[in-house]
């Protein structure tokens, strides 16, 4: 095991890093650590993006930037935590403003306004807004590397499923629109020349499609995207990881590597005074580490020890990143 440092030395083309895993396994710590390393050691302009609506990044960096846009933490390290509710609200206002501008109205017709407002009641709006924010940021190409901290499993799978569905949706809808436009043109042709004027809806759709397509292409490109799963040496985590792995695979996303977190150093066992409690836990972990090795073998890129304290604040992240980048644990 050589740690994530070695991985990124090998894979210099990677622009996007995604961390996924069940909750509470240290995804946020891992992504923060990697971002810190990329920004400070590798001197890459790094964006750390949390798609987890729990605002964990704010907690970990001990600074509130939830919903406050891209924030620079230290030189080269930027963090953003999307407040999806706010983003949906902004989006709705944009749409309203556009309607007002387009038709020179002072107010959006009540019926339309009501419709727009009520869309926030739709369950998928939230994820879509987050996804759109991700796609948008990547499309702007302001950073060298993007690190995404995915929400817990079910949610993470949904997030990726969303990407899949949204891109299918936009493909289909564009196709439907193409047919409409086609018949516009047919009617114009049949009328004897004259070109049908440009279809604004189509323009809008193509714009969306490009954005989504670029992003989907990027995150499914194995060269430019690294997809890590995080787990801990416990049976449930292993079962769930396997299950999630299958789901991600079904969605066309292949795992690049596995990060094993929260490992008690096996050396502790040599201490004759070790408490029964810890001994048991370490023995259990060792047992599951074996299983992990059997099941995932070459995928394992880093093994990170159990921290004696919850990693919080830049200092701790710096220390944690050492363990992630140069994995010292052997198993």
């Amino acid at each position: 095991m050589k740690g994530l440092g070695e991985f990124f030395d090998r894979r210099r083309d990677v622009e996007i890093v995604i961390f996924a895993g069940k909750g509470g396994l240290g995804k946020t710590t891992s992504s923060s650590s990697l971002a810190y390393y990329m920004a400070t050691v590798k001197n890459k302009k790094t964006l750390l993006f949390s798609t987890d609506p729990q605002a964990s990044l704010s907690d970990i960096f001990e600074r509130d930037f939830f919903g406050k846009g891209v924030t620079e933490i230290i030189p080269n390290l930027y963090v953003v935590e999307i407040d999806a509710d706010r983003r949906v609200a902004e989006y709705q206002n944009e749409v309203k403003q556009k309607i007002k501008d387009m038709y020179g109205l002072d107010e959006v017709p009540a019926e339309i306004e009501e419709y727009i407002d009520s869309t926030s009641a739709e369950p998928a709006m939230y994820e879509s807004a987050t996804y759109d924010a991700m796609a948008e940021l990547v499309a702007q190409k302001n950073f060298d590397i993007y690190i995404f901290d995915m929400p817990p499993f079910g949610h993470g799978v949904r997030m990726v499923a969303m990407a899949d569905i949204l891109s299918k949706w936009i493909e289909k809808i564009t196709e439907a629109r193409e047919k409409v436009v086609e018949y516009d043109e047919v009617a114009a042709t049949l009328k004897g020349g004259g070109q049908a004027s440009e279809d604004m809806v189509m323009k809008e759709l193509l714009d969306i499609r490009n954005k989504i397509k670029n992003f989907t292409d990027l995150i499914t490109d194995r060269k430019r995207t690294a997809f890590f799963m995080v787990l801990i040496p416990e049976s449930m985590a292993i079962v769930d990881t396997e299950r999630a792995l299958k789901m991600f695979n079904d969605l066309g996303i292949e795992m690049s590597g596995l990060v094993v977190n929260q490992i008690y150093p096996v050396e502790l066992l040599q201490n004759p005074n070790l408490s029964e409690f810890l001994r048991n836990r370490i023995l259990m972990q060792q047992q599951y580490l074996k299983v992990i090795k059997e099941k995932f073998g070459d995928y394992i890129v880093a093994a990170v020890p159990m921290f004696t304290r919850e990693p919080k604040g830049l200092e701790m992240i710096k220390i944690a990143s050492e363990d992630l980048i140069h994995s010292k644990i052997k198993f």
Partner: protein
Amino acid sequence: MFWKKKDKEKEQEKEQGSEKTGFKKAAKGVLYGMASHGHVMSALRTRMYLEHLFMFITLGDMLGIPVLPPYYSLRILPYAVPNIKSWKMRVFRERDFTDAIF
């Protein structure tokens, strides 16, 4: 045409502009009416149904049909605003088989 007010205006202007050449216009009109009008209408009608389908899957919940419109439907909404009423009318008008002969 749906979505396309400007087109229509242009057409009307064109028609008004050619008012002077009466006979030529009449002959052209008759020929167009005989040869192409039905054809063009059929294309427009096909377009209409395609558009119904399009609107249905993007803004179908406006008709009280629980198609949850994805996030991006809202981006299309501004363009649809002036036509929503006529769209609804067309969708809800009871059609008779005698409407569908041609």
